[in-house]
Structure formats: C-alpha cells, structure tokens
C-alpha cells in the first residue's frame, strides 16, 4: 500500500515569509496528524483531524499556524509569518481510526529552515 505522502521535502525561507506543507494520508485513513520535530527532540503534536474535523489543536500556535483538511483526505499546514524557531521537520501521520491504539503511519517529513 502507498504510504503517507508529503511535499515539499525541503524548504528554506526567510523569517516573516509564509510557507505551506501538503500531506496525503494513506487511503482510507480517517485520522490525520501534524507534528513538529525540532532537532534533538521528539515529535510534538500540532493538530489532529478526524475526517475534516479538528480533534485536538491545543498545541498549535494559532497566531501563525493554520491547518485544514477540507475534504477529509489531504491536508495543508501553513505558517504565516515564519519565525526562526519554526525551523524543524514537519511530520504528517495518519491512522485508520480515532481509537487510541491505532498505529500511526508517518510520512517522510518536510524539513523547514527559516533564515
């Protein structure tokens, strides 16, 4: 089966610019997650969708980050404007359902560098 797809794989921008990341989950997976992984740390959940609804966005910095999953399939994560501390790998993951024990399948990530 095809895995979680993400694009772009790498992005370099200057601070105060905007950037968007795209994720296409595994077909049939209702739950989609965006994580931020700063160098030397574990992934931190930013937002979780169930179909096109938000389940948890408590750790999303909403003044600059936004995410949507309008049709309940693919998703975009946007940062506007970017700050230096946003430099990180942004991971997308999906799982079959909302159950806590469902395995999450991760994409390759987008490495963002903010200069």
């Amino acid at each position, binding site marked *: 089966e095809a*895995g*979680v797809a993400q694009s772009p794989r790498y992005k370099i921008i200057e601070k105060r610019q905007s950037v968007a990341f795209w994720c296409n989950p595994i077909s049939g997976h209702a739950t989609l*997650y965006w994580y931020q992984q700063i160098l*030397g*740390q*574990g*992934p*931190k*959940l930013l937002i*979780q969708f169930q179909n096109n609804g938000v*389940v*948890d966005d*408590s*750790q999303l910095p909403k003044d600059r980050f936004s995410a949507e999953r309008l049709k309940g399939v693919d998703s975009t994560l946007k940062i506007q404007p970017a700050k230096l501390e946003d430099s990180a790998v942004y*991971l997308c*993951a999906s799982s079959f359902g*909302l159950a*806590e*024990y469902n*395995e*999450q*399948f*991760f*994409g*390759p*990530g987008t490495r963002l560098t903010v200069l």
Partner: protein
Amino acid sequence: AQSVSQHNHHVILSEAASLELGCNYSYGGTVNLFWYVQYPGQHLQLLLKYFSGDPLVKGIKGFEAEFIKSKFSFNLRKPSVQWSDTAEYFCAVNAAGQGFSFIFGKGTRLLVKP
C-alpha cells in the same frame, strides 16, 4: 501534564550486546504505550505497543518491552543487537480517554558497532 522521559540520549553498543532503553512517563491514569523507531533515512515506524493485558509486549525484529505500572516505565529490550538496529528510538504515551494526544520522548540514538 503528561510527559515522557528517555534517559539515554545516545547509546553505543557492539554487535551481540544486550540493549535496554529506558522510558518513564508521568500520568496517574490509564495509558497506552508505544515505541517507534526511525532508521537512517527512513520514516518513523511502530516497533511495538501496549494497551492492556500481558505487560511484556513483543514487537518486530526481536524487540520487546515491559510495562511496569508501579514504576511508570516501559523499557525497550533486545537480547542481542545487530548493526542494522542502528536507529533513533522514541517512546510515546497516550493517556486513555484524554483526547488521544500522543506525547513523544526526546528519543535515544543507538549506534551499533559491527
């Protein structure tokens, strides 16, 4: 708030050595526990998971983990490591019934010398 601690950030072993990576969490209620692995150049993938039942869980590639509730621990073990086990290992916790949010530890980088 929940948290996950992985005590060893870097571990270097020779092939055939035994491995134990520590993971402790802070949360007083029921938890679901996971170990994920990221091999060089690859995606994060699930190694094993615990929800209930037998506290000794077996995963892929000969790994196992033991949930000790009294110690809030979920340590990962492998009796004999191979060079191909070189990777970064992440422990993750999700508190049952608490919005399903996953909390990951900072990871442990394992280098196995041939």
